[in-house]
């Protein structure tokens, strides 16, 4: 097991242990969920409990990269800050150079390239974050991408990262329906339901960010989230009543 000491060394069976350990660091971050609807993209995150004297505005898991792209991350906070800063600079540089906003895929590829470079440099360690990048391209197509510490990225219809990501992903696989995500409300509700699977003490510990086509990013107020949660609970009660009847 001495192959895990230096990032640049493969183990005999082809593992890059530092990259795999970086993926373990991601699992230490709280859960983030992303769903791509037809006309809306939604990111939901589990808010970590902050210390009493800490200003919770400084603990942000959802960050805008540009007017049409935003992302959520899970893992090492400081690593995320560096990646986000570089991505934001790149978004503006792209606007100045080609006079167009970035596509979601472009900025995802940029972030993944940075991450990959750090898996192939001596003396450096990989970034310990995975991210969910969502937004709209200038042709109006909604996008959701996920990146991980190895520098790979994939497009998803719905995904989760961080602690309990596996549980949330299984819930999404069971409950994602193409017809449902045509409705904005249903997409938001799907994200909230997915988070409720793993978030303790409900809506107080959730933060949701929503972007509709040609509209700016909107962070939902706690009251709005509470309203969705009570709608979801009502629906649950009704399905249970129906089950009891049959």
């Amino acid at each position: 097991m001495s192959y895990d000491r230096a990032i640049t060394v493969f183990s005999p069976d082809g593992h890059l242990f530092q990259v795999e350990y970086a993926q373990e660091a991601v699992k230490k971050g709280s859960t983030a969920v992303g769903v791509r609807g037809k006309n809306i993209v939604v990111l939901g995150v589990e808010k970590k409990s902050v210390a009493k004297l800490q200003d919770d505005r400084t603990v942000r898991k959802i960050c805008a990269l540009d007017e049409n792209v935003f992302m959520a991350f899970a893992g090492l906070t400081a690593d995320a800050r560096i990646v986000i800063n570089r991505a934001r600079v790149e978004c503006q540089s792209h606007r100045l150079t080609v006079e167009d906003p970035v596509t979601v895929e472009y900025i995802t590829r940029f972030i993944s390239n940075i991450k990959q470079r750090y898996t192939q440099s001596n003396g450096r360690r990989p970034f310990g974050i995975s991210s969910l990048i969502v937004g709209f391209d200038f042709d109006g197509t909604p996008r959701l991408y996920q990146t991980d510490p190895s520098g790979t990225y994939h497009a998803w219809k719905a995904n989760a990262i961080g602690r309990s990501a596996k549980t949330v992903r299984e819930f999404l696989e069971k409950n994602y329906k193409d017809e449902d995500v045509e409705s904005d409300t249903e997409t938001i509700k799907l994200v909230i339901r997915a988070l409720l699977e793993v978030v303790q003490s409900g809506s107080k510990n959730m933060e949701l960010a929503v972007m509709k086509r040609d509209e700016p990013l909107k962070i939902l107020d706690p009251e709005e989230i509470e309203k969705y949660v009570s709608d979801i609970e009502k629906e649950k009660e009704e399905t249970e009543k129906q089950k009891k009847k049959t």
Partner: protein
Amino acid sequence: MATFFGEVLSVYSRAVEEDEDEVEDENEEDQQIRREMELKRAVHVEWCSEVTQSMMNSSEKTLQCSDFVIAVGCNAAGFLSAYVLNSGDWTVVGSVSLWNERSRGSSRQSGVPPQGEPSCVFYRQRDCPSVIICLCTCHVAEDQLFQWTEKVFGYIQRRGLNVMVLADCSVAEYKTPDSPFSSGVPFLRALKSSLYGSQIICPLLEQPNIVTGLQAAVLSHCQVHRIPAVLYQSYSDVISPDSVTMETYKPALTCLSKLVKLNTCPSTEILKKLVQVNEVQSNLYT
């Protein structure tokens, strides 16, 4: 070693110079320093007056003991503290004080160090005085291990003695061809001396893993002096006291219950006192 283009590495020669005159060159001052270091790093075992008295009265000047349970590390000590020491009438009967770079206790301490501080303390129960429990949370340096074992076991009668050691270890030290995360951390592994006859409650430690530290010194001592001994080592990914890691030692309760009265469900208050709660302060991960 991977380097960048243009970096110049100084290469160290591995040739060994045979220098037999080295030791004779030591002058009076070096010898004095060496003596002082030996004194400073000496291991001191102290017993309470009651125990010292009973040792004086015995024929071999040793303490009669049928079962000696040693906990090495904060999780093993926390487990014994919550599940054993909290039920029944256990009193402190002795302690070991030592100094090294990581355990800067004073080399001569009177009485037991305050709770929460790294220490090495012996407990005995009034109703069952043949069982001794040792909670060792201070670091014992490699050069002090032999002294610790010789001195402590020198006070204990060897005939009829059984030893059980519970020890913490980091899962990063565990070598396995499988992914380390597939075994479900934390987990227990065992090692025993050849005379230990009872059943082991978990798999034996696989090769090429080795045990180091105080637990290894104790087990080696028991093997050499033909004392039945078993070591249960818990591999965990948490370095601080943690209730989940403490619970891995629970199967050892089946062996311990034959010896002493146990509290199989310690209250959460007792566990909370033992476990460091520092999660809210940790902003490392978001």
